[in-house]
């Protein structure tokens, strides 16, 4: 059975992918799947009908209970007969229906093949989740087939509606199946039915969701709106998917579940049977008002599906047998009827019953097929439809729930069915034409390919209608596989003169009467289309509401304002942890917030400067106050005894201030907007909340005072194990060198980005074309120029000293690099970018690259010797001046750090400070 599924998938895919090259042959390729399936079914028929299901299992995701469990039992065989049998006929029909040079034929027919495969899988699946899987695949293939003619807006809209309605139903069903499966503790369909879980709320919800899926797929009221729309698909597709097979998937599932749940779950029968019969009546009423024969048939399908849902929904022994017959009968007559419509359309170029002419001699076989199909549909004796109707009415009379009401509704529905069947037949032979046919359009003869499949189906309808015994084995096996207590079923045409026969005749007669009196009855018939909420308006309203909600929500959430984004972020970051802190236990320590007066003084300075920076309106002054905050931080480090950090902090602050100056040259002097007062209040409020949370968190975490900290270990081990007296440096290049490696990479990437942006800005259309004011030049002072050369050399020496000595004294690669960067900054200030460029013949990215390679190399080399990444070695050297130096491999790493920082500084000036001062002075004259 998996081989059959694979065959469908492969042949379908081939037809789609090589459609252009295959041309007409694509039909044969894709048709192979149904043909082989049909042959397989015939070969295995005996085995399956003798009540020996064929099973097969392929493991997929066993832990989720998701396995390819396939099982062909009696009911499965019946469905498979429809899927494969009608499938073969549809492929024969398609071969004649589509012009051989039709564009996209391969895609269309390949999709039909894929659909056939999905449907085979659906009826064979014995695992609820696999069943759902194939279910969704039929939805998708159906969607693509309905929208096949994608240039037609109606086709697209119909495809979308079909997808959304059946897709939503399918997802509801998934949730339902999962709930039911968890209640039953199995996802095996046969297992679930053999041992159904006890009723519970969860089961009720699960089953209801499953039913929503089944109803939407089988076009039950109120979800039926998509099926008539789907008729824009090519007629062979409609015949196959939207009458004979796919729309029966919901019926199939209800048929499987009803015997297990209809009894124990009290609401099942009232709900399912009511929906089914409502659909039957609504569909019948709507069918009577159609002029397009295809739409007439579509509403007829809706109506008949309602009947099937009602019958199978009963879940009784009578019902499963009766439903099986109805399934067969309906598939045979409805597919044939569609084929008739297709042939008429092909011959006359229309399927509107007001314009169809009377058949000519050559078209008589088509008319005959139409007649027999309509007779079976209406339930005329000696057609299979009659047999089916008899058994259905019989079963409904024995309904455990409201038999009288149910039967009455079914008779009304059947009368409507008979009426629209008549309308179909009458229309198809041109008896309802109001316009004379266009003489310019010569009728085309229907080729045999359009007639033979229909003939086969009607022959079957007729034979089984006269001697229904031929179906005994199949129907018995089907009924027994649904409800094991059912004995063997014997089908008869005539059951004696009983109530059922009377009802059948009443339905037929009533149908004839309705058809005859269609004009006077017009207002009554219109009822079907004028329910307060029709499927079409409901769908459109839901779609509009969805789009409107999406727009509104997104408009609110995604308003595009950076200040609001930031406000929401900081507020969330304050409220979430703040609330969590307050709602649980926490320590607040001994209340001591500062250690010393100097600390308090610096803190006050920081606070004041920060507040000033927010209150000021001039950019430059604000930047300077930020600098004050930075330097004050360095002061805090000094007070806490961390000179290294202080040196680095001062270096960074200096560089940052220089950068600020460079950037601010290009920006307006003052901040552009002043915020309105309420906004200011809001901002202050946010700031206060954030501040309070940070304070609370600092208090709570600071109060913990862990017994041992990693810093203690660092201090203990820095010299003995890290071979350095400068703990900070040992941490940076050794203990936590891996962090440093990452951090210099950050610097490198930032430098590259700055250069790239600056370059892009120089291209037309780049950033600089924006309305930024021209840069303000820096004046050059000759004395400064000379003296900086001296200072530059001193700074450079200091930088190298810091690098080399850093392991034992304050300093290190980072601090060294920063000082060197400051030296470069000095050169820039005095001599502009040319002066910086003269420093080295190499490009600024060379130190960057070499630095990265050195640092990464220092990390990788130990690996080559079997050590850990970045593991350091040590070698003691006697160096003149410096005395005994322990040369650690960490120095190599530190050199990498040093080089990257220098590279960064050079690249930053390269990107921000490269306007030739002379020229910018010319262009910027007078802007100051």
């Amino acid at each position, binding site marked *: 059975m998996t081989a059959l599924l694979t065959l469908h998938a492969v042949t379908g895919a081939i037809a789609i992918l090589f459609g252009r090259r295959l041309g007409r042959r694509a039909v044969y390729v894709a048709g192979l799947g149904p043909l082989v399936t049909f042959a397989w079914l015939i070969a295995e028929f005996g085995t399956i009908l003798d009540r020996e299901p064929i099973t097969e299992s392929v493991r*997929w*995701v066993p*832990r989720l209970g998701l396995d390819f469990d396939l099982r062909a039992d009696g009911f499965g065989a019946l469905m498979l007969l429809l899927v494969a049998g009608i499938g073969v006929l549809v492929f024969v029909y398609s071969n004649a229906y589509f012009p051989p040079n039709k564009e996209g034929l391969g895609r269309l027919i390949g999709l039909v093949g894929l659909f056939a495969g999905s449907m085979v899988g659906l009826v064979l699946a014995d695992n609820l989740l696999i069943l759902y*899987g194939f279910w969704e*695949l039929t939805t*998708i293939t159906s969607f693509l087939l309905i929208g096949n003619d*994608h240039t037609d807006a109606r086709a*697209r809209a119909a495809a*979308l509606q079909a997808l959304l309605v059946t*897709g939503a139903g399918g997802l509801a069903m*998934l949730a339902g199946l999962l*709930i039911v499966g968890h209640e039953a503790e199995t996802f095996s369909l046969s297992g679930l039915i053999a041992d159904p879980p006890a009723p519970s709320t969860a089961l009720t919800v699960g089953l209801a969701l499953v039913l929503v899926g089944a109803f939407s797929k089988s076009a039950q009221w109120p979800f039926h709106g998509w099926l008539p729309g789907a008729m824009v698909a090519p007629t062979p597709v409609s015949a196959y998917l939207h009458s004979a097979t796919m729309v029966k998937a919901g019926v199939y599932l209800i048929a499987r579940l009803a015997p297990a749940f209809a009894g124990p779950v009290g609401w099942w029968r009232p709900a399912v049977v009511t929906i089914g019969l409502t659909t039957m009546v609504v569909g019948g009423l709507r069918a009577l008002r159609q002029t397009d024969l295809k739409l007439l048939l579509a509403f007829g399908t809706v109506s008949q599906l309602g009947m099937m849902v009602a019958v199978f929904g009963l879940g009784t022994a009578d019902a499963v047998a009766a439903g099986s017959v109805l399934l067969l009968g309906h598939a045979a007559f409805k597919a044939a009827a569609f084929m008739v419509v297709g042939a008429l359309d092909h011959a006359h170029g229309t399927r509107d019953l007001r314009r169809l002419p009377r058949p000519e001699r050559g078209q008589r076989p088509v008319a005959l097929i139409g007649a027999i199909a309509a007779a079976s549909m209406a339930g005329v004796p000696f057609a299979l439809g009659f047999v089916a109707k008899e058994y259905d009415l019989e079963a409904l009379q024995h309904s455990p729930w409201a038999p009288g009401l149910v039967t009455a509704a079914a008779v009304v529905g059947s009368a409507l069915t008979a009426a629209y069947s008549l309308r179909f037949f009458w229309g198809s032979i041109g008896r309802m034409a109001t316009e004379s046919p266009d003489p310019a359009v010569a009728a085309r003869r229907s080729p045999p390919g359009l007639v033979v499949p229909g003939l086969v189906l009607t022959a079957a309808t007729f034979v089984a209608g006269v001697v229904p015994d031929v179906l005994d084995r199949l129907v018995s096996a089907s009924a027994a596989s649904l409800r094991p207590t059912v004995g063997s079923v014997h089908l008869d045409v005539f059951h004696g003169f009983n109530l059922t026969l009377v009802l059948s005749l009443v339905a037929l007669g009533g149908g004839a009467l309705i058809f005859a009196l269609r004009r006077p009855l017009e207002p009554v018939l219109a009822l079907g289309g004028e329910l307060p909420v029709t499927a079409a308006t409901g769908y459109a309203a839901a779609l509009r509401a*969805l*789009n409107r*909600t*999406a727009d509104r929500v*997104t408009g609110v*959430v995604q308003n*595009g304002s950076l200040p609001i984004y930031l406000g929401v*972020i900081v507020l969330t*970051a304050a409220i979430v*942890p703040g*609330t*969590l802190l*307050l*709602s649980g*236990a*926490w320590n607040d320590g001994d209340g001591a917030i500062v250690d010393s007066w100097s600390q308090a003084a610096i803190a006050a300075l920081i606070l004041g400067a920060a507040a000033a920076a927010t209150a000021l309106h001039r950019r430059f002054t604000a930047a300077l106050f930020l600098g004050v905050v930075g330097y004050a931080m360095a002061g805090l480090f000094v007070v806490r005894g961390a000179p290294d950090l202080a040196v680095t902090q001062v270096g960074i602050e200096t560089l940052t201030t220089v950068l600020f100056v460079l950037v601010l040259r290009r920006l307006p002097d003052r901040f552009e907007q002043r915020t309105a007062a309420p906004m200011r209040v809001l901002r202050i409020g946010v700031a206060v909340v954030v501040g309070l949370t940070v304070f609370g968190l*600092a208090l*709570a975490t600071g109060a913990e005072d*862990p*017994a*041992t*900290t*990693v810093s203690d270990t660092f201090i203990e081990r820095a010299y003995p194990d890290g071979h350095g007296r400068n703990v900070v440096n040992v941490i940076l290049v*050794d*203990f*936590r*060198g*891996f*962090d440093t490696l*990452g951090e210099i*990479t*950050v610097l490198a*990437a930032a430098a*590259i*980005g700055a250069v*790239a942006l600056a370059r892009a800005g120089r291209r037309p259309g*780049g950033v600089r*074309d924006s309305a930024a004011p021209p840069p303000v030049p820096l004046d050059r002072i000759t004395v400064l120029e000379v003296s900086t050369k001296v200072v530059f050399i001193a700074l450079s020496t200091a930088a190298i000293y810091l690098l080399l000595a850093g392991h034992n004294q304050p300093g290190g690669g980072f601090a060294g690099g920063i000082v060197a960067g400051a030296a470069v900054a000095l050169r820039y200030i005095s001599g502009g970018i040319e002066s910086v460029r003269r420093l080295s013949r190499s490009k600024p*990215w*060379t130190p960057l*690259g070499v630095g*990265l*390679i050195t640092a*990464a190399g220092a990390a*990788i080399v130990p690996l080559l010797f079997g050590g*850990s*990444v970045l*593991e350091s070695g040590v070698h003691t050297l006697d160096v003149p001046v410096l005395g005994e130096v322990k040369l650690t491999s960490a120095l190599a790493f530190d050199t990498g750090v040093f080089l990257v920082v220098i590279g960064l500084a050079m690249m930053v000036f390269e990107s921000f400070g490269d306007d030739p001062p002379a020229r910018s002075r010319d262009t910027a004259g007078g802007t100051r």
Partner: protein
Amino acid sequence: MNALLALPVVLPLLGAGVSVLVGRSRRAQRAVSITVLTAIAAVAVALLIQVDDRGVVVTSAGGWPAPMGITLVADRFSAVMLLTAAVMLLAVLLYAIGQPGAERNHVGFQSVYLVLAAGVNAAFLTGDLFNLFVGIEMMLTASYVLITLGGRLDQVRSGMTYVVISLMASALFLAALAFTYAAAGTVNMADLAGVVAGLPDGTRAALAGLFLVVFGIKAGLFPLFFWLPDSYPTAPSPVTAIFAGLLTKVGVYAIIRTQTLIFPGALPRWLVLTVAALTMVTGVLGAIAQDDVKRILSFHIISHIGYMIMGLGLATVAGLAGAVFYTVHHIVVKTGLFLTGGLIEHHGGSSRLSRLGNMVRTAPLLAVLFLVPALSLAGIPPLSGFVAKLSLIDAAVADRQWPMVASSVAVSFLTLFALMKIWFGVFWNGPDEPDAIEPPATAAAPGPALMLAPTIVLALGAVLIGLGGGPLYDYSVRAAEQLHDPTAYVAAVLGEGP
């Protein structure tokens, strides 16, 4: 074999250095990047096999034992993330090389891309909270550069939003680290697992919440995601693809890692689940409201992050397994979709739905390359998304979290709806704007081979992850068991002496 743990971080850094030096030769740069990323993919495979065999693999940088030094750790979750990331990085690199303009005009692209790789890998492999910060910083800095590649005005403007918000997140992260160190005296995650458990519950929950917010910004959780759809779509296609695939997932990884290892049970479950549900819903509604391929896809990222967080919020083995599986699936599928989006833009000259149309006829291959990952994302079997979504919804049903079942199913439907918007706008409808030029239907491929090949590979990935769902889900369960009970992780990190 502890080298395996370090190589994914240091190799790209070495490569980045070399790439900077050979900046004049595009060829040499490409060779370096391809070599490095291929090597990392190989390392990731080896590591995955080793980790699945031994459980947890640990090495200490510099030979300093935990909790003093920086530990690199790979458990099953990080190993599979590393491998997925490596494959994506390689695929997108090839795509970028193939795409005219994305990489060619920018000297920095190759080296910065390697820095991004190093950052992502470091985030997955580190066992140290501060080092996680460094890894994420590497990744972010590289992303700042990549997002503004080209330097168009709109790019820089939306890049600003991205940079400013990321910097804010980094500042918050740093503050969270400071608080954590103050309370625990260590930043080693395994060590923290023990120490944090002893903190008062308010302090513990507050820290957990702060980390959730910090990583939630990166991951794009509700209500912190707005930067994402504003900034991603303006970057060059390959950049958007790799961001979409990996960056938010690093956030998700960090959330799952910290919440399961350091703060298990610290946050109320309803909080995480509510955030997950809101993220799902607002994300997908945002997608529905858009009319641009890249913007729709960007909003989708957010929506699907919600699913992953739902797995975390369930806090059961099944939920975590679903989250792991979902994350891997989503990285592959989302990257693939964005690559297809890039091809659509390449072929049609725009990514706006109103200017595109009829591509099912003019570029049928793109239709397939869109439909496969799109249907996977919507959860259609037998593609990867089906197994992923099924595992999560199944976990929610097993845990009887009905609101989560309802929202995840509803969002699945809306996902399908939003994706169909692209299908209709790009492939079925004609262009709405009269001046839109429709590319002619030719038999020629809709893009350079080097752009198509990675896209095809990722689309196949969606199929293979789906069909191979059995062993992959089994692996996810094993990964989830490690996350659910981190004692083995802690023992492996703290027990190993120098």
